[in-house]
Structure formats: C-alpha cells, structure tokens
C-alpha cells in the first residue's frame, strides 16, 4: 500500500483528517491520505467509489473538502496550510472534478449497460437466472462474450449522429426592443457556432479581427448592423468589414449557378441553339447581368431569393463539410471555388453519360434471351436413372417369361367377372383387424403427438433448459481447437460446468417428467449433446497425453 508505483498527480501537505496532520496524495486511480511521519496511507479511496465531492462555502474559516462515497460514507479533509490552503483546496477540487467523471462513467456505464441488456431481452434474463443465479457459471464468463459485441455497437453509434444546423437559426435570434430605439440580440454559443459553420467567411473575419481590433461584443454589433445581415443588401459602405463577405458570397452565388449549368452541360448545349429565345433558356443568367429594364422591386425580390438560396446552400454545405478538416479555414473558403474547378475536369465524362442516358431507350433495344450454357454430359444414362440405389433385379429366364405369359393369357381368355364373390369373410375380418388401431398396419401412428402428452409448462421449462444448455455448449465448443493454456483451463472448467448443469437442472427435470408423465423421453437429445461434449473432451485429453508420452 505504501509503494508509490502509481503515478502521483498531486501532493498536498498539511492536510488534516480527523484532527490529524498529514499529506494528501492524488494518484491516477485513487486518492489517499497518510498521517505525517508515517509511510502508510490510512485513508484510500478509488475514484470509482467516490460519488461526489463537496467543498465548504467560501466565507467559512475552515477550508474543507469532503468526499462522499457510493456507500454513503464520507471523509473530510481540512486544508490547514496557512498560506496556500485555499489554492490547495482549489487545486484538489479541480483535479478531482476532472478525474471523477471518467471513473464514474466507466463503472456506472458497465452496470447500466448490463441492466439495460437484461431488461430488454427476456430470453437473456432467463438465461442469466438459470446459469448465474444458480451458480452453474460465473458472472464474468457470462458477460465475457456479450460485452464485446455491445461495445463495438456503442462506438459505432457514437460516430453516427452529429447535430446539424437549424435552418432557422438566424431567424431565431429574434431581437428584442431595448426600450429606446435600440435592439437587443441574444447570442448563445450555439448560434455563434451555427453562424460560423454556415458562413465560413464570417468566421474568417472573426479570426482576423477579434481580439486584436474589436472585442467580441463590438464584432457582433457590427455584424448585425451591417447590411450584410440585412435583407436588402443594396448598398454597402466601404468601411464595412463585411463588405468583403458580401462580395465573396456574390462570387459564391455565381459559381453555384455555373456549377448548375455545368452539371446539365450536355443537354444544355443542344438546347442553347440560336433558335431559342433568350427567356426560355434553362440555365438562365445571374440577376446582375439581367435586362436593365427590370424594376427596382423585381431586383430586390430576386436579391432576396438569391440570398435565401445562398443561405440554404451554405447550410447544406456546412453539413457536408463536417468530415473535412475544420481547422483549415483557407480550404473552407476556397471550397466553393474548388467546386467550380473540379466541375471543369468532370465535364466531359458527365456530358457523355448524360448523352448516353438520353439516347438509350430500353424498349427499343433488341431483346437478348438469357445467356445459357449447354449442359454437356458424357454419361447421360445417369440422367435417366438418377440417384437411385441399385436394387437387385430378380433374374428371370426367358423360358420363365414365356411360360408366365402363356399362363396368364390362358387365364384371362376365360375370364368372366364375378363380383359377388370377391371376398371371403375370414379374409375380410383379418384385413379389418390389420387396419384397425393397434393392427399390423397402424403401428407407427402411436409414436406421434408427444407434444400433446406433455403440458405446456413442462415444454416451457424444456425450452429454458435448451437455451441454457446451448449457451454452455457454445462456450465449450468455442474452446476448440485448443491453442492456448487459457483455453485448456477453460475447456476443463466448462466440462465441470456442464456436469454441474446436468446434476442440478437436467436430472431433476427428467425425474419429474418421468414420475408424472409415463416414459416420454424428452430429454434424450439434451443428454446426447452433453455426452458428445464429454466424449470430445475425453478424446482431446487422451490425445494430449499420448503426445506428451
């Protein structure tokens, strides 16, 4: 206990516990306190045992730290160093704050996980009751196989879900009037994060200006004041730091449209022939180069629509950008440019594919029948007789055959149907006896319906026995081939488990069934499975001994 082989994170001198002076040690996995002058720790608690920590309020004379354990006990440490008591205690408190959650989660998580699994799956619960509660198998072995599968599932699910950006995050800000002509905006870190993710240009500006030129508050005030944020965005002052953002967005808008056009490339080139009037072009042109006769209102409408489209596109792009390196801001801002560059490269193959799809019609193609391969048999008489066993044919000489034919011919020539005397009563009664229940021809019928002889509770118990036996046998058979000493021990242990199972569960059940319900042998198969397992183990052991010899 006194060996400090663990990593010591913090040592605090002059900490009193139960009115004794001593030193407090915070290690990697536990917290310990030893009285002054002695080597041992009198108090040692694992972090996983500690439920929570409490500190004395700031105003009090005594500076104390209390640890409450899961069991309800508590230990109090009094920091009595004159100069640094408060800082000591703060240091201890901070370190514990960091460490406790790690350990707490681990212990609880496992237990919670186990409980959850048992509650969700009644079959598992029954298996647990059968095997662990009745001490056939230990709990560690039971959970050994199961926990590995659930851990991988959990890590998978952790990776999947990331919170996306709400599309209405800007609208949700909802400025409130401040009384006199001012507006108050409530910005939470979530909103700030959404803004940064959607508009990486703004994030860039933030990085450049805060905290060098502007405070955070000023930055956001300017942001909301800027016309960048407002809907019309008609005129932008030259001093506005966000004018660049506006220009970049504008550029982004154009590239989006160009992208759209490139994607529809092959088809569009055909359709942008001279004959078509300009208004009917599919690709369209950006609003900035449109007809100057358009009214101001149309301009502002198209500007709003453009901004909405841009806003949505940025949100979607932010969602898909998550996988990329978020630290590289330059790459993010150039990603929109990069799109246009990539689309240049991809233009020819995409065009070809589009052309091909537009030309091909499945109906007009010639129908090919399914491609078949002719079966080439060398011994085709095998096809005639099939997998039928060779039966001994009765050998008849040709003389026999001739005799038989003449005989029957003779007999049939004189045939007159005599239907009134087809049967004799003795023959009939023996036939009826053979066909009645219990008769010669009805023997196999009585073996059926064993499930009607045994009630459903017994059947249910048998099912549980099968599940439990199946679990044990699975553990047993996965040990083969025996490669390591661990598996050797496990195999022998499983054998003893199986024997114990047979003694405690199988035999009493069988006796009960036999006492009550005749000689229905419903546990025969289970016994057979167990016996096979024993035989295998025996064979393996003898082989091992032979090898050693």
């Amino acid at each position: 206990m006194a060996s400090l082989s663990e990593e010591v994170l913090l040592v605090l001198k002059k900490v009193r516990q139960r009115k004794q002076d001593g030193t407090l040690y915070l290690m990697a996995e536990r917290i310990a306190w030893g009285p002054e002058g002695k080597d041992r720790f009198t108090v040692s608690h694992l972090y996983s045992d500690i439920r929570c920590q409490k500190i004395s309020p700031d105003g009090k004379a005594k500076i104390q730290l209390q640890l409450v354990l899961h069991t309800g006990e508590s230990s109090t440490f009094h920091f009595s160093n004159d100069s640094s008591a408060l800082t000591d205690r703060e240091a201890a408190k901070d370190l514990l704050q960091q460490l406790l959650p790690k350990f707490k989660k681990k212990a609880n998580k496992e237990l919670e996980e186990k409980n959850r699994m048992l509650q969700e799956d009644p079959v598992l619960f029954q298996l647990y009751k059968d095997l662990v509660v009745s001490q056939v198998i230990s709990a560690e072995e039971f959970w050994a196989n199961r926990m590995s599968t659930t851990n991988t599932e959990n890590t998978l699910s952790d990776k999947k879900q990331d919170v996306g950006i709400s599309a209405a995050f800007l609208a949700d800000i909802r400025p409130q009037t401040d009384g006199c002509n001012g507006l108050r905006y409530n910005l939470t870190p979530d909103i700030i994060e959404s803004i940064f993710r959607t508009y990486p240009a703004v994030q860039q500006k933030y990085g450049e200006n805060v905290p060098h030129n502007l405070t955070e508050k000023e930055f956001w005030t300017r942001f909301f004041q800027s016309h960048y944020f407002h809907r019309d965005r008609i005129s932008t002052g030259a001093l506005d730091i966000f004018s660049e953002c506006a220009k970049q967005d504008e550029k982004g808008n154009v590239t989006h449209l160009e992208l759209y056009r490139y994607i529809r490339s092959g088809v569009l080139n055909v359709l942008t022939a001279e004959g078509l009037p300009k208004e009917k072009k599919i690709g369209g042109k950006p609003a900035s180069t449109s007809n100057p006769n358009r009214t101001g209102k149309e301009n502002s409408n198209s500007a709003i629509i453009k901004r909405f489209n841009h806003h949505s596109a940025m949100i979607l792009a932010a969602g898909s950008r998550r996988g990329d390196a978020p630290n590289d801001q330059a790459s993010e801002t150039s990603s929109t440019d990069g799109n246009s560059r990539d689309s240049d490269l991809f233009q020819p193959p995409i065009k070809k594919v589009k052309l091909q799809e537009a030309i091909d019609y499945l109906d007009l193609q010639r129908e090919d029948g399914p491609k078949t391969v002719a079966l080439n048999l060398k011994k085709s008489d095998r096809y005639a007789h099939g997998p039928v066993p060779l039966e001994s044919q009765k050998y008849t000489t040709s003389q026999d055959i001739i005799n038989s034919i003449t005989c029957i011919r003779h007999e049939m020539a004189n045939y007159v149907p005599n239907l009134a005397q087809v049967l004799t009563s003795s023959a009939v009664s023996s036939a009826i006896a053979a066909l009645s229940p219990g008769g010669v021809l009805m023997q196999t019928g009585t073996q059926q319906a064993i499930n009607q002889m045994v009630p459903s509770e017994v059947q249910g118990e048998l099912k549980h026995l099968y599940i439990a036996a199946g679990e044990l046998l699975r553990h047993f058979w996965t040990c083969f081939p025996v490669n390591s000493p661990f598996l050797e021990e496990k195999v022998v242990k499983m054998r003893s488990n199986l024997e114990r199972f047979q003694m405690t569960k199988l035999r009493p059940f069988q006796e009960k069934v036999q006492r009550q319900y005749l000689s229905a042998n419903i546990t025969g198969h289970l016994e057979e499975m167990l016996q096979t397992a024993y035989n295998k183990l025996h064979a393996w052991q003898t082989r091992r001994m032979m090898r050693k010899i």
Partner: protein
Amino acid sequence: MASEDELNLLVIVMDVNPIWWGQQAQRDMSESTECLDAVMVMGNSHMAMTTTNRLAVISSHFQDSHFLYPCKNWTGGDGAWDGTMDEAPYCGDGKYELLSVANNVVAEEMKRVMSTTEMKGNSTDTLLAGSLAKALCCILLQKIVTFFSAGQEMKSRILVIKTAEDCARQYMNFMNVIFAAQKQNILIDACVLDSDSGLLQQACDITGGLYLKIPQKIALAQYLLWVFLPDLEQRPQLVLPPPVHVDYRAACFCHRNLIEIGYVCSVCLSIFCNFSPICTTCETAFKIQLPQMMKSKKKKLKQSI
C-alpha cells in the same frame, strides 16, 4: 361432404405386367382374375357414391399403357362418361347400367390386352411413368372440358395398384410426373401388392396421398374400399394407416450407395460420395482446398528425434 357441383374423377392405374401375374398364377391359381374383380368392385363403389363421380381405368403393361375404361372401341357409342347407352347389354342382375357397362368394358379390354401381349424386346418393366403421364393428361382434359361446358370444378386423384418392381430407368420421368401432379393438386395413392416401391413412396409423400403395402392379396377389395375409397376431404376424419417414413437419401453415382452427406457437382448436379477432381458425368474440373496437415507432421518428427 362434397358439394353437389363437384366432380370427382378417380383414375385407377393398374399394373398388369403379365410376367408377374403369370408367375403368381403359376404359384397360386386364379389369383389374378380375383384382383381384377377387386379393382372393379372399387371402381363400382366409387361411381356409386355420388352421381357426379367419374372413373377411368388404365392398364400399365410393358408394351404400352392402355385405357381400359372409358374406351373408344366400345361399340355402344361414345357416351361412356354419361352412361347413355343405346344398346346396353342386359347383365341380368338389375345393376345400375353405368356400372355394368363399366365392368363389361374393363373385362373386354383386359382380355384384349392380354391376348395381344407379345414379348418382343428385352424390357420386362412396367411402363408406370407413361401410364401416370397418360392419367395426368386425361385428368387435365376432363378438367378443361367440364370447366368450359358445365362450369364445374373437378377434383381428381390417381390410385396406383402396383405389382412388379420399380424400374430405375424411369426415375427421371417418374419424378417429373410426380411434380406435375403436385402442381395440379392431384393426389397419388399407392396400393402395393408385392415389394415396396421407393418411387411410389416418394410420390405419395410429395402429393399427399396414401401408401399401403398389403400383406395378403385375397382381401384386396377390402383394403381398397377401406383405405382408398374416401376422398381427400373425408380422410382427416377417419383413422387411416399413418404415413410411411420415406427414405429420401440419394444414391451416389459412383457406387449407387445411399449416402447422407456427399459432394455435388455444381454443373450437372450429380452426386458423389468422394471428392474427385473431375466430375465423371460432365467432365468439369474442380479444386478443393485440402486441410493443412504439414505443420503437425513436422512437430511429430521433431519430437521423435
């Protein structure tokens, strides 16, 4: 009870292999004609159950398969199914005319079949697969005719009375017939007089019919009436012989032994009991990964040294 609108067609396929019957006749006199009588009793009973029941009898020979009833050779006109005879022979015992006509026709045809028996080729096997195929065709034709003329549904089943042994060469045809019958919901029942027939056991199992091997031929009529007269709807309400356990194991193509686990060629589906790198039926080459045996051998050598 079957509704009045339903027609039931029973096709009796009788194995009249003269070699088998002749051998039986040489051993015990006058048994073959009694069996034919029993079959006629069965046919009469079936037709007597309801007026909408119909009958067909096919003889299965090693030369050919022949419809004993209804037959085109009957000079009394072609109204054999309806029983409308212009000049029905008077049989003297006041029997329902349809039954007496049927009996006479069957007897006449049977005599003719037997008298024209000639042993030409080597084959002495009954052409059972062919007879079953003819039975299926007859059933199908009748089904179409009754459906379009009278708008009635027709249920049908086949009763096979087998005497001689199975012919292995007819295996493929037999299986095809069985599956066709299963698709058409036609039962195949089997009454076996001499030796067990694996093919018929399979047929009965697949189509849902009854297979019965009779201990004594004398009481054939009793067995037929007891077991095979009730049709499909009535059978669950009766205590009938339980189904036979069918041995579905296939025989390997190399030794014709019955095996449970074997190797199957993926090209021609022929079954072998041992792995061979070339399939002997279709000559396809196969590779198989042999288990690694080298390491343990080395170990053993080391220890012995």
